[in-house]
Structure formats: C-alpha cells, structure tokens
C-alpha cells in the first residue's frame, strides 16, 4: 500500500516537473544597479505574462559586460555604452554585442524654492560638490554658505551624478550631507533654504526648485532629446540581434505596459 502511494507521489512529481519545464528558456540579466529596478519589474511582469523565468543580478555595469562576454548572461544591463576595450574583448570571443536603449535616466539639480539661483553650469555644480565653491554668492545667489546634500554611495542616482556632473577622479567633499533616498533628499532641500541636492527626474515637485544646467531646464522633453546634460541612456546589451523570448523582453520598453513601468520608476521613455 505504502509502496504504491510512494510510486504515485513519484509519478505525480515527475509529471509536475515535466510540466513546469515546458518553457525551456530562462533569461538571465546581469549588470548595472541603476537599471536594476527596471530590469526587476520587467522580469516580474514577463514571468507573470509569458511564464518565462527571468533572473536579475545587479553587479555593476562593468560586471554585466563581462558576464555577456563570458556567456554567463543573456542580457547585460549597462548604464553607459560599452567601452572599446570591452567591445574588442567581445569580438575576440566571438560575441557580437548589440545595444538597445531601454530608457533615459535624468537627474535634476534642485535648490530651495526661495533660492534666486536659476541656472548653473556643470563646472559650478561640480565645484560646489567638490568644495571649491562654498557660498551661494559665488554662483550669483545670496551671501550664504551652501549646504551640500548627496545620496548614499550605494545609490544608482549617486553613481549617475558622479559620472555625469562631478567627473571621474574628483572627490565629493567629506562635509557633504548624505541622505538615503530621493524622498529624504527632497525633504531636506525643501526645508533648508541654502541647500543643494539632486533627484531622479520623477521625484521633482513644487516643494523644490530644479535649476537649469548649462542653460537647459530638466524635463521629459530635454532629457529625451539629449540636450539636458545630466542625463544618460540605459542599455540592454545582447549577443547578436535578439530573437524569440529575448527579443520579446528587449522590446518591452516599446509596449504600453513597459512604458508605464519605466515612468513609474522615475525614468524617461525613449
């Protein structure tokens, strides 16, 4: 009796296994922490809709590129275009990286609404964060010391800001205050008249004032056209032109649902 039962259980589990194995393909994503949220919500959506298993790891853009070259991931997510060295390494291994732009990532530089400063250059902002400029009057504002607010080093926004504004090899000064989320940066800037901070474009509202950078105001249009300087495209890289499920996944940003998810996460649709 018991033996029969066991047999039955074994048979059942076997068929169950076979059933779940039907969608053969698993899509593996690896790379940028900035693209991470988009990749994750795409993955959840994709699994729900098509029953395809999607795994997402966030090990940084460089590691994503490495994974694609080594063949350990299907799609590499990068917050920057692939470097020449990476492309060369890929070609050597017979991998042909093809880029698809997922979304645009734009950062607004924000100040207190009462601050008369309306526009700054990228160099000025970089100097403020580096500590070379410490008073608002040096950038055409009132005579008041600047309270510099940045994000925790683990944030993708902080990474974008460092790459796009502060520049490589320049250190943000130690006395800069660090906040843990877009929300708390906004709350600090909106309650501190002499503060400066940066936010993902989706987080800007009336409680803070975004300033023009190099003469361009940040909004969906200027970010999309590429004229706003503190913005960058985010990429999915595949080996060769994507096909099948991978193509379906890479094309998600073109669908209405994909667009919805992207703008919900504070990014800008291409």
């Amino acid at each position, binding site marked *: 009796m018991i033996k029969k039962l066991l047999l039955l259980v074994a048979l059942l589990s076997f068929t169950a296994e076979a059933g779940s194995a039907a969608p053969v393909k698993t899509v593996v994503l690896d790379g940028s922490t900035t693209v991470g949220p988009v990749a994750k919500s795409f993955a959840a959506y994709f699994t729900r809709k098509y029953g395809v298993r999607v795994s997402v790891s966030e090990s940084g853009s460089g590691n994503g590129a490495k994974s694609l070259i080594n063949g350990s991931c299907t799609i590499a997510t990068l917050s920057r275009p692939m470097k020449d060295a990476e492309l060369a390494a890929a070609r050597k291994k017979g991998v042909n990286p093809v880029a698809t732009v997922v979304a645009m990532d734009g950062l607004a530089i924000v100040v207190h609404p009462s601050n008369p400063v309306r526009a700054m250059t990228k160099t000025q902002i970089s100097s403020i964060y580096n500590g070379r400029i410490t008073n608002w009057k040096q950038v055409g504002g009132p005579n008041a010391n600047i309270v510099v607010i940045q994000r*925790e080093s*683990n944030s993708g926004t902080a990474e974008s800001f460092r790459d796009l504004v502060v520049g490589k090899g320049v250190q943000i000064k*130690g*006395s800069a205050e660090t*906040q843990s989320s877009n929300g708390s940066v906004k709350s600090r800037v909106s*309650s*501190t*008249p*002499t503060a400066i901070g940066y936010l993902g474009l989706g987080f800007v509202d009336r409680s803070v004032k975004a300033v023009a950078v190099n003469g361009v105001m940040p909004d969906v249009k200027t970010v999309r056209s590429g004229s706003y300087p503190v913005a960058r495209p985010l990429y999915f890289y595949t080996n060769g032109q994507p096909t099948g499920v991978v193509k379906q996944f890479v094309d998600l940003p073109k669908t209405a649902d994909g667009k919805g998810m992207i703008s919900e996460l504070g990014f800008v649709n291409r």
Partner: protein
Amino acid sequence: MAEERGGERNRTNTFVVSSRKRTIQKAVNRAGELLLLVLASFVAVVVLFIFYFVARDAIPFFELRGFSEFFTTSEWYPADEPGKFGALSIIYGSLMVTLGSAMIAVPMGIAAAICLSDILPFSIRQYAKPVIEMLAAIPSVAFGFFALVVFAPLLQDKGGALLMWAWWILAAPFTVLFVIVLSDLLTTRIKDPARRKQLNLLSVLLFGLLSAGLLYRVGTLLHAIEILTGTNALNVSIILSFMALPTIVSVSEDALQAVGRDIREGSYALGATRAETIVKTILPAASSGILAAVILGIMRSLGETMVVWMASGNSAHIPEPWFNYLEAIRTLTATIAGDMGEADQVTGSARYHVLFAMGLLLLVISFICNLVSERIVVRQRRILSGQ
C-alpha cells in the same frame, strides 16, 4: 513546603513521602536545573557567537588594508576605485553624539530620579514614573522622523533663539545660587552683624548685576548664531538624550529606592537636613546602581541607529572646530546601516569587511564599558558593605 517538612524525621508521619515519589521529585528537580542551565548558557553562547561571526568578517579587512588607514585617516570613499576607508571621522562622530547625549541625559536623568524617589509625594510618583518609562516604548524611527521633519527645520529657523532660551533657563538658577553663596563666603568674616548684612547686600547686588550682564551677553551671542543645517550633531544629541533618559531615570530611581528607609531615617536622626541626606547619604549609597544606569543609557545612545541615520546628516568629516555640534556628522551605526545594501560579500571585499570592522569596534567599546561598570559596581558594593 509540606513535603520538605515531612522529610524531617522528628515530624509527624502524615507527611512522609514515599521513596518512589522522592526519586521522581529529585529527577524533576534535576531536569529543571538542567533546563535553566541550558537556557542561561544559551544566552552566553549567543553573545560569543555574535563576537565570533563579527570578528570573522572583520579580520579580513585589517588583513587587506591594515590598521593605520582605518583608525588615523578620515577619507571615507568606500565606493571609489580603489576605495578609501578612513573611519576616524566616523568614530569621532559616534563618540561626539554619545558624549553630547550623555551630557544632557545624565544630569537630567539623575536629577529626575532623585526627584521621583525622594522629593515628590508618592501619589505623583505613581503616575510620573510610568509616563517617563513610556518614552522607552516609542520606536526609534518615530524619534528619527521627528528629528528630521520637525526638529531639524526648527533648529534652522529658530536655532539661535532656542539656544538662548536654553542657556538662560539652565544658567539662571545656577548663577543666582552662585551669587548668593559667593556673597555669603565673602562677608562671613565680618564680625559686626549690621555691617555684614549691608556688605552682603552690596555684594549680592554687585555680583548679581555683573552675572546678569554676562548671562545676557552670552544669550545674545547665542541668539546671533545661525544654524546652517538642522541635521547636525546637536539635533541628534538632544534626541538621543531623550531616548536614553527613561533608562537612566528608571534604573537610577530603582537604585535610590533600594537604599532603604533605615538609612534615610538614620541620617535624619543624626540631624541631617533633607539636602544633606540626599547628597551625602543616599547618593553615595546608590552610586553603583546610578553608574549602571548611566552606562546603560550611554550604550543606548552609542548603539542607536535609526535616529542618527535619519537626522545626523551623515557627512564623514570631523567638524570645524572639533567641538562644533552644529555641523553634520556621521556615526558608525549609521554607516553600517547605510552601506550594507551595496557592499555585497562577493564583489566589494574590503567594502564589505570594513562594515564588520566597525561592528567589531562597537562591540569592543560596549564590552569595555560593561566591564568597567561591573568592576566599579563590585568595588562600590565592597566599600559599602564595610569589607
């Protein structure tokens, strides 16, 4: 009780327990003791394991980067390539807010405990103590939210005025006391009572005016201070002191109560006033308990994470000048909480292990504090028991 007595031979036979029953009793007794032993040693083992696991992940950091960078430089750029892991400013920030909160919470807490135990009537104490203890039940994130959203903007807008009022309220009573005592001391040698009274009055007037001027001057200086950022060491120190207060008050009050009525009455019987009894008899007798309370309170401030994470500003630098409580700082606990998300163990090895090094440092500090307080308590007890 009945069985115990029954065990003795010269009692009546009604309570004699059969040998079988006695064996069972013994076995149950043993089992109970064993269970308690296991439970008690479990706690000790947990502490040891925490030490072991934190140290296991902390030591690789020192192997990778050595000691001098961590303890002597204050360049904290863990995300850079290559990263910089100077934690001096962060250690300093932790010590700064702990000291700041202790400076507020310890005098206030002990004063409140004395007031509760020896001055207020019982009917008031009955309600006051639970209310103070309720402070301990407020979750720290609520304190943090208050510090960030209410207190920080308040400090920015009205910081100078707040500082001025705090100075006046705190300093005025002490100044009055000081002037009176000083005048008494100055005129105590004059023999003629009438003349003494006159001079005394004169001196009170003179010093009173002087110190009132001083009070006012310092007050206006404080009022002129403009607080640039509300998320600073002062904000965090004040909020942390509120969090440490219930522990200090409650434990000190228990210590003061434990001194006992006989000692108090003995003191009164010898002709001591209430002030003398409190200062010279009760406080020394309860000092070990009060010290334990203070250490517990300080540990609470040192280990608190959420409030400092939200309201200290988290900027890894030593304030300029070093005692400037009006600048943002960063603490060990906040750094661990903030950086843990990114520092995954596979990729950023030094970046991951440095957080454990910080955890180990916190553990060692609290361990030393506990050890010291234990030693003092034991010694105090020996002195008081007259050995």
